[in-house]
């Protein structure tokens, strides 16, 4: 086989694989811009005949529409909950990861193992106990309640990831900085933190996406526009006898876009973060 045919075959295979991966996402986005009739048509219409923004108008209650969904409130909730819980998870992750990477203390291994084991419990298994406790504390349908759940969900992961990055930074760098006149804190802030930045960014984006996309727990713990997040808002399109697929897809598009933008913004760090082993001091 010539190298050219090999290249062509590998391109075809890559294309098929990429198609399988991107198809559902592509379908959701396309459907967001198509009228419901066309989505549900039988036989299926594969190539969109008509693209429209009507679904978006409907969601935002512009023009004549039957359903108006409080998208802005959901969006606000999602932003507040996801960013706050990510910020807290990152701060705790940095402190915890640094401590696990650098210090020796009692029950260190047990503690670390405990954190990891907590990740093996599926979040949904906790939903009932969390619901009962939250209900007693009056945290149901509050942003705070959901933030707390997401912090708990993300912290083991951020600690684990950031710990790995700090581990890869030779501890002599901080020592050299200390000899050079830094306090312990300055040595961390000026030397170790900038070097772990890509790891912290990776942890951040993962934590953000988890909080941003989470559905099961949020659907249990939220009730109204006080705290409902975008993924939970999607269920507003499901009525007793009908489902507004077009509206739902349009809203899914709204959910996907910020996550996509964020991922693109930190992509450089993500790649650096995943190939950190190649960088030597």
């Amino acid at each position, binding site marked *: 086989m010539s190298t050219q045919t090999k290249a062509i075959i590998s391109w075809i295979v890559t294309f098929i694989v990429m198609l399988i991966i991107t198809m559902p996402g592509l379908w959701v986005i396309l459907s967001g811009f198509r009228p419901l009739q066309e989505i549900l048509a039988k036989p299926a219409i594969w190539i969109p005949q008509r693209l429209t923004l009507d679904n978006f108008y409907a969601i935002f209650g512009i023009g004549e529409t039957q359903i108006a969904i409080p998208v802005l409130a959901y969006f606000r909730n999602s932003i507040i909950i996801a960013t706050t819980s990510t910020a807290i998870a990152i701060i705790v992750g940095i402190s915890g990861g640094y401590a696990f990477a650098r210090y020796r203390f009692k029950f260190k291994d047990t503690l670390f193992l405990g954190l990891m084991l907590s990740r093996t419990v599926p979040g949904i298994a906790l939903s009932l106990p969390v619901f009962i406790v939250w209900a007693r504390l009056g945290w149901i349908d509050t942003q705070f309640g959901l933030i707390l759940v997401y912090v708990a969900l993300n912290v083991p992961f951020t600690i684990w990831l950031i710990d790995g990055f700090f581990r890869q930074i030779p501890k*002599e760098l901080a*020592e*050299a900085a*200390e*000899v050079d006149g830094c*306090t312990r804190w300055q040595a961390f802030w000026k030397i170790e933190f900038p070097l772990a930045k890509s790891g912290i960014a990776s942890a951040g984006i993962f934590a953000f996406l988890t909080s941003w996309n989470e559905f099961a727990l949020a659907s249990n713990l939220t009730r109204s526009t006080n705290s409902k997040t975008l993924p939970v808002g999607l269920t507003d399109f499901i009525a007793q006898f009908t489902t507004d697929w077009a509206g739902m897809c349009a809203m899914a598009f709204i959910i996907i876009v910020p996550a996509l933008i964020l991922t693109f913004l930190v992509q450089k760090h993500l790649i650096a973060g995943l190939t950190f082993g190649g960088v030597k001091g």
Partner: protein
Amino acid sequence: MTEVSLSQVVKRYGQLEVVHAIDLEIRHSEFVVLVGPSGCGKSTTLRMIAGLEEISGGTIKIGDKVVNKLAPRDRNISMVFQNYALYPHMTVRDNLGFGLKIAKHPESEIQNRVEEAAEILGLGMLMDRLPAALSGGQRQRVAMGRAIVRNPDVFLFDEPLSNLDAKLRVQMRTEIKKLHKRVNNTIVYVTHDQVEAMTLADRIVIMRDGHIEQVGTPLEVFDHPVNTFVASFIGSPPMNQLEGKVVDGGKSGLQITLADNILIPVPKRSKNRVSVGQDITVGIRPDDLTPVGHGMKEDGETVSFDLTVSISEPLGTETILFSSIGAKEVQGKMLNPRPIELDERLTFNLAMDRVHLFDAASGQNVLGDANG
């Protein structure tokens, strides 16, 4: 004046004591090398001086100041690490100026001092590069530059050359010596390489298992090792150590029998320090075991015996000869070498005035007074 003084310094990790109450006085502008096999506590000792390890007991003074509890930044020291520890996200210039910047020196002064250090070490062309874009030798130089820029009281070097290849190591060794001549600060230098220790040091501190075995100038520790450990550690190729026993040779006085019926007299200076029946380790430097006609000087008292040469390693100006006495391998040296045939039998001269005697049980030198 910056002396460094350690008195009764102890380091424990939990129950494990790794440095046992060591005493050491380092004089102003002295170049002291701590040397020993890995795990002997030399790096730990250096790190205690730096303040990177807490001490578990004793006192460390830098100048007149007790520094036991001081943070590294308050000790006015600088340190060169084995892996250079350059800040990977800063250019060479920023690496050099980092300490001064932290100390909030004015920008213009930082620039001058960085330029000066860069010139001393020939870093001019590399100033705007990141450490990742430097070779091993260049990184080493930047690390040294970072140390001298702050003009500290004491320089600490922790095996700075062990990551370099052999040729570069020799070259950097010379540069470090030049640097010391130029800046004249007190230097404490840790290495496991005895050649480095010998070539660089004003005084060598030989450590083993958390104890200081001997402190002395390179020639002192070479010529008068206090015990078999120092004897075997210093010198290359290493000193031959043969087991023997003191016997009464009647008219010829006390003698030592070695394997293969070799008899050597006990040197006069140690007559009173050994007794008949004592087990003795005889230390012979390869330089002092030379084929007749191929030695350094043959005017002193010598003992001659024949040995079969099993392997020879020509090095140009000299050839290392491998043979054996009893079951023990011994190495000799042939100056002005000629080709050696396989299993050739040669008569060797042993320079008696340079033989070392150690008590076999304790390993301590029993030669008596160094000049005796």
